[in-house]
């Protein structure tokens, strides 16, 4: 596995998320590039890579905003792990896979955030309701684009798998 390349992708996604994501928002709801990268990593490289990349990306994000450090790390870590647990059981070429995983991942991440913030007496229930549908659709579509981009580089990112075929072509 070319971990430095995975780290590079994650770092670029982090910088874009903190700088440009809001400008790409629809009705005030910004896309979650980090979530899409983490979901893609989980689906393609397994639960360990998914969980660790999610936790690291979330931690960086939390550190930058300097409050509730661990909130995004936990949410994205869980999403990466859940996506990764399905790695061996899914048909990676299927276009619906990243869409579905993106939607489910968004639901999980937002729900973890909601529960934690409610536990910390932060009233975000209305915000959660208002933004959930848009963010789920937006991130599902974005996940498809990001997943396909990473999938095309699968052989480069995982050179330890000595084969000329893509994952779905192997038995």
């Amino acid at each position: 596995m070319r971990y430095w390349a995975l780290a590079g992708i994650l770092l670029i996604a982090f910088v874009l998320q903190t700088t440009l994501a809001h400008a790409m928002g629809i009705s005030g709801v910004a896309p979650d590039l980090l979530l899409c990268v983490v979901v893609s990593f989980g689906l393609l490289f397994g639960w360990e890579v998914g969980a660790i990349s999610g936790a690291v990306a979330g931690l960086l994000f939390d550190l930058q905003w300097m409050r509730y450090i661990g909130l995004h790390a936990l949410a994205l870590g869980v999403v990466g792990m859940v996506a990764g647990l399905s790695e061996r059981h899914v048909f990676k070429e299927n276009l619906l896979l990243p869409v579905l995983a993106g939607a489910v991942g968004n639901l999980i991440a937002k729900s973890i955030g909601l529960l934690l913030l409610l536990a910390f007496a932060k009233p975000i229930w209305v915000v959660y309701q208002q933004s959930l549908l848009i963010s789920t659709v937006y991130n599902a579509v974005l996940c498809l684009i990001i997943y396909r981009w990473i999938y095309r580089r699968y052989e480069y990112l995982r050179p330890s798998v000595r084969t000329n075929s893509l994952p779905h072509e192997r038995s």
Partner: protein
Amino acid sequence: MPPASMRNLKRYRPVAIVLVAALLLLLTARMTASPDRQVSWLERSVSEAVYPFQVVADWLTGGLRGVGAGTAELFHLSRDNVQLRAEAKQIPQLQSRVAELEAENTDLRKKVGLPASTADKLVAAQVIGRYPESWFNTIIISRGSSDGIGVNMAVQDERGLVGKVVRVSAHSAVVQLLIEPTNPRELGVTGSGSGIGAMDQTTREPGLVFGLGDRQRLKLTFFNRDAKVEVGDPVVTSYLSVDIPGGLAIGKVESVGSEQNNLVRVATVVPSVDFNHLEYVFVNLSKGSTGGSRP
């Protein structure tokens, strides 16, 4: 062959690691929930490392926004021109009225022995980041402790109060917007949230303004349950606030009602600031804490 207990240990090790990590993250989230804590060197380092990227990204998106907005504005130029010319005719009259009132104010202050009011010290800042989630209404501005910015300082734009500084690093600061939803129970306990001292400018009735998470609405709770408030009354910041300078525009009363069995008088306020299009703001250095003692 290892014994069964060893095999079980190896099998459940990943689960244990995940659980411990989740517990640690939960603990750090709880520990860093309060706004009244010291910012660690790690947070400051990440913030400083991202700062140049944010400036460049804002410059790039600013260019794109400028092209889009410029094209859209072409269609309204003629109408705006007529409107602005009509407004400009009133400026000299307003200027002389303001000068007259200022002189009268200075004279009256002298007579009652109050110190002369001084102009607020403002530092202009660019909005270089915005919290991408809808969970928090916070922005990052391009000024930090090296520019004299401190926590709890008021942030405003030409239309009124935008929010207050909650975190500071050397070259940037995190600003919590006025619209941030607040749990009133939090106030006074952790000092978090956007509950800000305010008053009805017409009747001088004092109260507290809370964010609702809605960019178009704020909630004003009056201290007096018989407060006389009218729809359309301007709402400004209270002069009694420790951190926020008084007299800054907050918005206008949209509707008036009561809560908790008519024990509390409340009003819905439409904010004067457009929170969807914040590009430049001013940090008011008059109040709040200066420097980086609690960055």
